[in-house]
């Protein structure tokens, strides 16, 4: 049996002792390892010395807007923030029991999740290299816990593969790796790559393929205990007289290919999806609340901006209070506008034609997330799935299992859909009730006995129908970037834009924060130079 030890076993005692003595001097001289490549974030901006009485109006109390308010205040500016909604955070948002979701068109959902349960309709995971966000989480005391991104025991489903029966990710991934290794080994041995790979490298590569692909002595990928020690067994090893394991049967190449499992493998390999990932304890909105605590007194909620003007003296935003109907005008020397481009495109805003074109050039994606509350954590109890995602090629895209309250005997909310593209539009076009029904019908493919039986209630957020944004996030193309990006982010008179749409980290909180830092740094330079 595989022991709980490191994979390195063939260590030579003698060479090791030599190494321990000899190599040291060199390493001692090594400079600290280079960390510069990790991010464009190099600590909070050191802005200071704002001119006395200089003021900035910030539109939008999402992360970009609140960060701008926080740092500009520290730098000495007088800041006011206008926010359309009755809460701060924008897309940094968690839906809980007692919340009400009102869509464009009027459909209203009253959420009935149990206390402690939630759905993160927008951002839900934080890569370890999103250092700006991690920095402010720490600064504002937002506690993080691991987000289980990669779960080898979750499932992969494709209608046209395995007769529509979901497979465990680990089995397909191991089989894919094994077949790829066997085929490449065969090509190498047949001399098919002799012009590309030297003889020495060929031998090394074959050794690597044997080990990494779990191939047998003949470089074949077959059903045996070694392969089972990767993909799992038919009968797992156990204790006592009948403890011996029996191997599981591998899938053939054609079946593995039909599953498109590489799609999921590629997904997990993505730099932004790599472990370790985090989530805030208690819901994503803990981050928004952390920011808000710092600057709450600067924010006017329930305030809808209707026009944005500027001249050589300053900026002015006309607003309407959405509760009282009262109207007003807020003025300042400068403006940081973080309104989503979808909303901004509908406003009367006094900026250059180039910026207007840029604002109108970014379509927004239309993701839909559905949170289903279930009576029990059957995915853990019966399927041994603790966090992570099961993927499907149906409209729901995936279901994702909660990464908090593991093992608890109480109702839990799982993510019943994270749809985008056509699937997103299809679900967004349904009534909230029909979305839940579709999520139950499609998600049942993974957990057929339990899904409907354990279902209690559900809530959905169709981003294209959220009145304050009308989409999920900005979808740049290479072409639109080339034509419009610099125009979008450049300072236009006294106005600068910020938000995830004004970054190369679109759809991520990190993009919003980096964009905001870049914008206020330039604003500050301009203000000092003026």
């Amino acid at each position: 049996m595989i022991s709980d030890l490191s994979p390195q076993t063939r260590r030579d005692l003698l060479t090791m002792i030599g190494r321990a003595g000899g190599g040291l001097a060199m390493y001692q001289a090594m400079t600290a390892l280079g960390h510069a490549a990790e991010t464009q974030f190099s600590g909070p901006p050191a802005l200071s010395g704002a001119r006395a009485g200089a003021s900035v109006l910030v539109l939008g109390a999402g992360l970009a807007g609140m960060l701008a308010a926080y740092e500009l205040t520290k730098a000495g500016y007088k800041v006011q923030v206008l926010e359309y909604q009755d809460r701060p955070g924008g897309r940094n948002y968690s839906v809980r029991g007692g919340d009400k979701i009102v869509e464009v068109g009027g459909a209203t959902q009253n959420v009935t999740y149990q206390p402690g349960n939630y759905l993160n309709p927008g951002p839900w995971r934080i890569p370890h290299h999103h250092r700006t966000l991690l920095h402010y989480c720490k600064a504002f005391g937002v506690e993080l816990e691991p987000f289980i991104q990669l779960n080898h025991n979750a499932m992969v489903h494709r209608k046209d593969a395995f007769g529509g029966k979901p497979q465990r990710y680990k089995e397909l991934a191991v089989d894919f790796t094994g077949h790829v290794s066997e085929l490449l080994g065969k090509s190498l041995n047949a001399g098919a790559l002799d012009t590309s790979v030297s003889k020495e490298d060929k031998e090394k590569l074959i050794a690597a393929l044997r080990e990494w692909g779990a191939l047998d002595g003949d470089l074949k990928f077959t059903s045996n205990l070694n392969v089972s020690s990767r993909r799992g067994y038919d009968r797992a090893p156990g204790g006592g007289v009948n403890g011996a394991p029996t191997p599981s049967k591998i899938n053939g190449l054609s079946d593995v290919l039909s599953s498109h499992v590489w799609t999921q493998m590629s997904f997990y390999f993505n730099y932004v999806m790599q472990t370790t990932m985090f989530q805030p304890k208690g819901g994503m909105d803990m981050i928004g609340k952390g920011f808000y605590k710092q600057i709450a007194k600067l924010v006017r909620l329930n305030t809808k901006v209707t026009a944005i003007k500027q001249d050589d003296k300053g900026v002015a935003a006309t607003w309407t209070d959405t509760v009282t109907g009262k109207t007003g005008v807020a003025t300042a020397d400068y403006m940081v506008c973080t309104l989503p481009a979808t909303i901004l495109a509908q406003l009367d805003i006094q900026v250059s034609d180039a910026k207007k074109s840029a604002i109108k050039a970014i379509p927004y994606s239309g993701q839909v997330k559905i949170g289903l509350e279930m009576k029990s954590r059957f995915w853990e109890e019966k399927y041994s799935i603790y966090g992570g995602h099961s993927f499907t090629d149906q409209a729901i895209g995936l279901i994702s299992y909660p990464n908090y309250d593991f093992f608890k005997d109480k109702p839990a909310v799982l993510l019943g859909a994270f749809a985008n593209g056509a699937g997103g539009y299809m679900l967004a076009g349904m009534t909230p009730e029909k979305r839940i029904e579709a999520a139950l019908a499609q998600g049942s493919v993974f957990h057929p006995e339990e899904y409907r039986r354990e279902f209690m209630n559900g809530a959905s957020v169709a981003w294209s129908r959220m009145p304050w944004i009308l989409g999920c996030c900005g979808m740049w193309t290479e072409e639109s970037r080339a034509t419009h990006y610099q125009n979008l982010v450049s300072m236009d008179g006294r106005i600068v834009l910020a938000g995830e749409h004004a970054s190369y980290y679109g759809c991520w909180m990190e993009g919003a924060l980096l964009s905001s830092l870049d914008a206020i740094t330039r604003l500050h330079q301009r203000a000092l130079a003026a």
Partner: protein
Amino acid sequence: MNEPIMPMTKRDLLSMIGTAAGASAMYMAMSSMDQAKASNFQGPPKLEGGKGASVLILGAGVAGMTAALELSRAGYKVQVLEYNDRVGGRSWTLQGGDTYTELGGATQTCQFAPGNYINPGPWRIPWHHHGLIHYCHELGIGLEPFMQVNYNAYVHNTKAFGGKPQRYRHIQADFYGHVGELLAKSVNAGALAQTVSKEDGEILLEALRSWGALDRNMRYVKGAASSGRRGYDKEPGGGLSAVPEPSEPIDVQTLLRSGLWRSIGGNLQWDHLSTIFQPVGGMGQVAKGFERAVGHMVRKNSKVTAIHQDEKGVTVSYKDTKSGAAMTASADYCLCTIPLPVLAQIEMNVSPELDAAIRAVPYSTSVKVGLEFKRRFWEQDDQIYGGITYTDLPNSQISYPSSRYGDKGPGVLLGCYVGGAAGYELTAGTPAQRVEKVLEWGSQIHPQYRAEFMNGVSVAWHRVPFTLGCFGSWTEASRAEHYKNLCRFDGRILLAGEHASYYGGWQEGGITSAIDAITRLHQRVIAG
């Protein structure tokens, strides 16, 4: 830029709508998925009617305490003798204030700050260790995720890259990329036409492009695709100067010769797959959970000196290690979970076959060294949050704590986890020498080591008095000859523990072995 959404893009709206309505009936009719494969733990044993028979259990580790819990529930009279002054055996956590004396007399007092710890023995719990997870749940032992795979941790070979550690993500992305490119080249050249059908070949090329992050020409080169995996020279950012700069992949020759691809294999092992857990507060919480349920049956500080059986029952002689008093305990049956190196030194009247089996299993060595540092520099400087760095240096790995992320410190990391020859070498030194060696090695990966170091503690398992080794190392040959004899009922004595399982070195082996043993014991009792 990548967005936080799923990778499926070529979806056909029409076919999808059809699916949503039409196919659901089919899925509903599908039978539930086969869950049996994941483990041979089928729930706790259903033993009933123990008839008041008595069982003496030797050893209050996880195997012994599982047996005590289930046998007492079934109506047996249970007594447990434990050598240590604590329960748990190898399921153990060292924290500040703990004192540990090893064979030879060296005593260490752990100086860690409150909340810091190391687990000298088991430290992680795979999702498919159903037996252990069952008892954790039942006994109220909180579990939290153990970070097994961390793409941002290092892999390190002193003989490659001038001894400079590489990020795991670089090695994995580049290895997959080169393998993808080479296989695509073979497929395109028709080298596999005999093996792979034309249709599969086309799908395979699509797969390799995506999986290997190849470009349009099926090459693994510097660019958006490869940097989307391995990371950038300059990260994407916000505002005016946001454009990312791609990083340069390592060429195939350098990569292969570095041998570092080997370090990405460990995470593909069944026992290391995610999701994987650790108890909140240390592995010793498992021991504490069991103790809450069976602690009243356990007599600690009791060193077994002889085990004698006859047709009537079993009598065990033991010594109270505090008072020195010689005592005996008797019962109808004996379940012995004492590790084999210790058991081999205890006088016991069993069959020659069992006696031979007990002596046939050498124990692997293993050394763990925990180091406490003033701050969590691996997080603050290196952006490594949990996970494991692998090195060819004798310390073998550095594992970063999977809890209290972002804490200011002090923090404890596992500076060494090594078996084999390097383990014996390190075991030979004094605790202070071990810590010094581990600092010396680790400094080559984290130059911050010396400046931030506070204190360290080590457990070298061959010097642990209660096991004299880490766990049983079976070979195919020794299994064939001795395993059944080791597990078989011998008169009134049965053995259990990880050594009596095919899950050697894991707590799950101890638990499934105990359940197998007491199930057979119960059958014997019922059969009268």
